[in-house]
């Protein structure tokens, strides 16, 4: 089993990396590029077991440690 976690900056938070990548894409000639958000991707290997129990534990870990709720949102998937 694997957990896949995507952490992105909250919309209200200044994201200079995203803005810079957006500008670079536009300069490369990609037309009509909208806002870019640069985040993090974490992949966590899990032993086989109760998926729901892992989900609860990792939700807690995401909230307490893997993301900072002041500035980031996260999306957790277990497969």
């Amino acid at each position: 089993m694997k957990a896949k976690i995507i952490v992105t900056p909250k919309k209200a938070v200044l994201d200079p990396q995203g803005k810079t990548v957006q500008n670079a894409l536009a300069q490369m000639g990609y037309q009509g590029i909208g806002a870019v958000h640069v985040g993090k991707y974490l992949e966590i290997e899990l032993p086989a077991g109760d998926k729901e129990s892992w989900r609860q534990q990792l939700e807690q870990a995401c909230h307490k440690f893997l993301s900072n709720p002041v500035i980031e949102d996260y999306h957790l998937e277990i497969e």
Partner: protein
Amino acid sequence: MNFAILQFPASNCDQDALHAVKDVLGHSARLLWHKDHSLAGFDAVIIPGGFSYGDYLRTGAIARFSPIMQAVQAFAAQGGPVLGICNGFQILCEAGLLPGALIRNRSLQFRCEHIFLKTVAHDSPVTNQIPEGKLLRVPIAHGEGCYFAEDATLEKLKAGRQILWKYANADGEETDQANPNGSLWNIAGICNETRNVAGLMPHPERASEPVLGSADGRLIFESLVSWLQSKVAKAA
């Protein structure tokens, strides 16, 4: 007074903080490794700058789980003064001891330069000796010093006089140009509601004696000493 100066893997301003407190101010100070558990016998804690745990995940995110940080939580809850400088400020925010967060500089550049710091609240353990109107010329050295908090948090900080320092120009004006990292409201340093925990991005320890080009930062440490001395006097 007896200062504890914390050391995490990749702290790099610990010796400078020790020098400022011990050699410049003449107080006793000791370095405490992050695996230590006790702050018994210490009057104040300084969390110095650096790149604790390589800034992995987020700045300060891993350091906050160090054993010594549990002791800092208890120390702060009992009213003990804690000052976080640069990475120390980031750690205090991650630990929830200070509100908000420090994010990547607006310019994406690592900024290493002297700035002017305007003190906006003089009634705190770390600002009480700074004369009204005095601008502090102190260096910054960070890539992630842009202070962010939600509007409601900012308003609460303002109402509680918890904003201690702001970035300003040489005339003391809080302009956008004088803001080196994009911090909301030009915020450079704040304290908690009970005022005993404070953090700032600039480095007062690197501006604590004339040979370093500025001795303005010394006022912050002198404030802390003065506050501790008056606390002792009151208790007597």
